[in-house]
């Protein structure tokens, strides 16, 4: 069998391949040759074959069949073999595979080898990929080696110990004795790795941290020597002596000084010295300054030192080097919470960074700018940020828009300014605005009552210009639907009122319905808006026509709405005049649209399927009292309970099942009974009708019934027949609850009742657990 080709030959050959397929063919051929060579247990060329395998592995080809061969190489006596074997182990094996444990014995032997370079290889491999088991097995050997005076080995063992600690933190105690006199080393490599070990121990254990605090003076001394010492060719980097060690010491000082007055005081001088004396013309000097600043900010430094640190960062911001500007912005972002005023002083420089060409810098500057916005600088800052929003890359726009909305909400100087800012964002970055902003904005607009006319006018004008930005279009349609009357009557005070007719408004809304640019959600908004205008505008016929057309729309959501609205026209036209479809409650970004004022008591239940299913946690929020105030206004006039008959007509598809009724609540004269039906066709839905009756001598007015169910259920509460429970059992208030119970779990409910009785407000909470099994099985 001829000798296998040499590694460099193979590399040369593979590089001549012109296509991926050609390369694959060469690799497959060579792999086959290597495999047969392995099978023959060829010792001479094993090293060469594994080396070739490692090359092919780097190109992305599978090499797992070489794993055991690596182990054989490690066990060999030849250094060349061991070198490649250990490299192969580090590249091909990983701690997840049991195979790696076979290495343990070899490594143990090699740790005790007479040649330091062999020991070094073993240490390196253990430190690179030693699993927890291996570390446990070999920790003793590592600890033994820590005592060596051989500096080449010492530094490797120390980092190996760091690895062991990271893998098996419990073993940390074992290495404590070896840390005595750790810092009295002269060799920089050993010193550096020792500082790393100390840092690791201090970070992991508060006890160790306290124990090592006494090293602060020594560390300060070493750092001082490094700074003051003359030129040392071995460690010099651009005129600075061993910057790597300096930074590591600064980092350890940071950990030791944090939260401790004495230690912080001990390092004050040296930090000031480093901060003022370090050469800043090259990156290496700035790296040290950067670490110094981080240390100063973290420990309990005196205020003069802190100001010095922030000023250094301020100088960094003006540096020509982009990397340094970036690092400054990152650090300022970290300190802006604790040293807000000091960072504010650099606000104008930070805002200038928004115009930087570099993407990383722009992002940091944006984040920092938002952190710096406060009541005083809101106008100026918002100008800059809006300008940034206009001109920035798309990847920033969503975050920037959200940030603008948040800042505007917190610090808006006036409602008009707030609305204007929102308009600006919607028109310039409208398509990048997050979906959940739309309900928030709508709520905001609703609350600014005096701005309604102005808002709807501006939104209308924006729609005339551009209908492609969906969030803008959605907010605008909603506003027009709600305040369309203000629009056509030209009531705007804030600016010149525009002259617009009802037909023009309807043209715009219909345009949204047909446009290809509108998403289904937008179309839903537009249709609802048109419907709402039927009570505000006079051209009802036109609206009727539009609504009936969409009754056969392909979009199911749209079709459903159109059909329901149509029903409103046909069956309940006499009610419609009193309708004000208002937004009453926003819960977790869903709209809960309820008919607020209507002449007729009875509500078209099927029409109100716009009401989304009320989630259990939403209602629990209501009951729990968040900042969302539940407002279910039922300003209805009294109507005899014959409405109940009509209710059952509408619910005609329900079949009464033989589930016995139950009393859910009976207290202070208020009795609430539950009757049950099963809804067809979905057997998982239980339909419960509550009947509230009042046996006292006074009426219970403003009666509101609310219910919440556990998370595995979903509950839908439809409108009540009335909110007055007449005295002396003269009538009942009924209300329908639909409960979806897909998991067939036992039904439980928590109810809340509020009403006014004899002039005083009454509120009560109760648990209902006595549901008959047939209601939920």
């Amino acid at each position, binding site marked *: 069998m001829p000798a296998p080709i040499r590694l*460099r030959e193979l590399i040369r050959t593979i590089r001549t391949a012109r296509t991926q397929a050609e390369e694959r063919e060469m690799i497959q051929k060579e792999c086959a040759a290597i495999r047969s060579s392995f099978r023959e247990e060829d010792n001479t060329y094993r090293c*060469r074959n594994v080396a070739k395998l490692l090359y092919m592995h780097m190109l992305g080809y599978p090499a797992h069949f070489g794993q055991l061969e690596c182990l054989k190489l490690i066990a060999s006596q030849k250094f*060349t073999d061991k070198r490649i074997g250990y490299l192969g182990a580090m590249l091909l094996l990983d701690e997840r595979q049991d195979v790696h444990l076979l290495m343990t014995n070899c490594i143990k032997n090699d740790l005790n080898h007479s040649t330091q370079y062999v020991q070094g290889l073993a240490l390196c491999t253990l430190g*690179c990929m030693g699993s927890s088991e291996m570390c446990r097995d070999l920790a003793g050997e590592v600890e033994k080696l820590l005592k060596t005076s051989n500096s080449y080995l010492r530094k490797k063992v120390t*980092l*190996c110990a760091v690895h062991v600690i990271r893998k098996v933190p419990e073993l940390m105690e074992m290495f404590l004795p070896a840390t005595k006199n750790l810092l009295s080393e002269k060799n920089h490599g050993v010193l550096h790795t020792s500082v790393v070990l100390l840092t690791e121990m201090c970070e992991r254990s508060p006890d160790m941290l306290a124990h090592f605090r006494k090293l602060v003076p020594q560390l300060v001394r070493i750092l001082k020597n490094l700074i003051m010492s003359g030129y040392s060719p071995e460690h010099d980097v651009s005129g600075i002596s061993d910057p790597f060690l300096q930074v590591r010491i600064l980092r350890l000082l940071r950990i030791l000084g944090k939260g401790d007055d004495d230690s912080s005081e001990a390092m004050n001088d040296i930090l000031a010295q480093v901060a003022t004396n370090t050469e800043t013309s090259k990156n290496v000097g700035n790296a040290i300054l950067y670490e110094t600043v981080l240390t100063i900010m973290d420990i309990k430094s005196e205020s003069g030192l802190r100001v010095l640190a922030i000023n250094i960062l301020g100088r960094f911001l003006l540096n020509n080097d*982009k990397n340094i500007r970036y690092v400054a912005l990152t650090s300022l972002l970290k300190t802006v919470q604790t040293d807000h005023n000091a960072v504010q002083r650099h606000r104008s420089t930070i805002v200038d960074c928004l115009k930087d060409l570099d993407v990383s*810098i722009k992002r940091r500057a944006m984040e920092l700018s938002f952190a710096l916005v406060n009541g005083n600088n809101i106008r100026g800052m918002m100008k800059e940020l809006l300008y940034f929003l206009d001109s920035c890359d798309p990847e920033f726009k969503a975050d920037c828009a959200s940030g603008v909305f948040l800042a505007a909400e917190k610090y808006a100087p006036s409602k008009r300014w707030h609305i204007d800012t929102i308009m600006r964002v919607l028109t310039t970055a409208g398509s990048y605005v997050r979906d959940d902003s739309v309900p928030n904005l709508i709520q905001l607009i609703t609350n600014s009552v005096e701005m309604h006319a102005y808002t709807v006018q501006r939104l209308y004008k924006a729609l005339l210009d551009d209908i492609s930005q969906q969030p803008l279009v959605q907010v605008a349609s909603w506003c027009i639907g709600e305040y369309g009357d203000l629009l056509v009557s030209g009531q705007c005070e804030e600016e010149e009122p525009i002259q617009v007719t009802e037909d023009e408004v309807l043209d715009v809304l219909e345009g949204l319905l047909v446009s290809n640019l509108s998403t289904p959600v937008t179309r839903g908004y537009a249709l609802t808006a048109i419907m709402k205008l039927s009570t505000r505008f006079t051209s009802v016929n036109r609206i009727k026509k539009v609504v009936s057309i969409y009754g056969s729309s392909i979009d199911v959501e749209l079709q459903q709405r159109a059909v329901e609205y149509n029903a409103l026209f046909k069956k309940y036209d006499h009610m419609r005049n009193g309708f004000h479809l208002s937004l009453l409650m926003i819960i977790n970004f869903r709209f809960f649209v309820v008919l607020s004022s209507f002449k007729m008591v009875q509500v078209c239940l099927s029409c109100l399927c716009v009401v989304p299913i009320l989630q259990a946690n939403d209602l629990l929020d209501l009951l729990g009292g968040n900042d969302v105030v539940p407002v279910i206004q039922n300003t209805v006039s009294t109507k005899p309970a014959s409405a109940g008959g009509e209710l059952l007509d509408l619910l005609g598809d329900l079949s009464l099942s033989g589930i016995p009724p139950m009393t859910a609540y009976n207290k202070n004269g208020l009795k609430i009974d539950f009757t049950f039906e099963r809804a067809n066709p979905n057997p998982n839905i239980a339909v419960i009708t509550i009947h509230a009756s009042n046996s006292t001598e006074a009426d219970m007015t403003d009666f509101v019934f609310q219910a919440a169910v556990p998370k595995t259920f979903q509950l839908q509460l439809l409108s009540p027949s009335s909110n007055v429970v007449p005295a002396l059992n003269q009538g009942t208030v009924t209300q329908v609850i639909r409960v979806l119970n897909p998991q067939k779990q036992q039904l439980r409910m928590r109810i809340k009742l509020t009403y006014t009785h004899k002039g005083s407000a009454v509120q009560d909470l109760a648990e209902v657990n006595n549901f008959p099994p047939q209601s939920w099985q």
Partner: protein
Amino acid sequence: MFMRFLLLFSRQGKLRLQKWFTPLTDREKKKVIRDMMMLVLARPARSCNFLQWRDLKIVYKRWYASLYFCAGLEDHDNELLALEVLHRYVELLDKYFGNVCELDIIFNFEKAYFILDEFLMEGEILETSKVAVGVSLEEADTLQETMEEYMSKPAY
């Protein structure tokens, strides 16, 4: 730790060296490599050398016209120092190979690993002196058995 990984790859997206300082599955490694190549190779010429990826800071630098050095750091690490670390590694390669270029690293990839292993370990710096690293490499090389090896012509 300091570094989570160190990658060397060419402008054409060919991997030249991969050193992982944390245990990852093969799939995870491949994903990181793909993402790094995608992010770094897409950066415009005069950008800053840092970017944010997931929860890591990525430091990268281009040397020898077409070779990218890319390191992943943890959040509390010093990026400016990381640049110095990459620079130091390049210097070590240069010293060893004598005016190193990408081809040296391609044809002698195992040596690039040996050099790296004398400089970094467990994601931390092992030796801060250039001279010391050079000396240990030279001495280790002499242990390679054949005369051919000693003359820098590898036996394999």
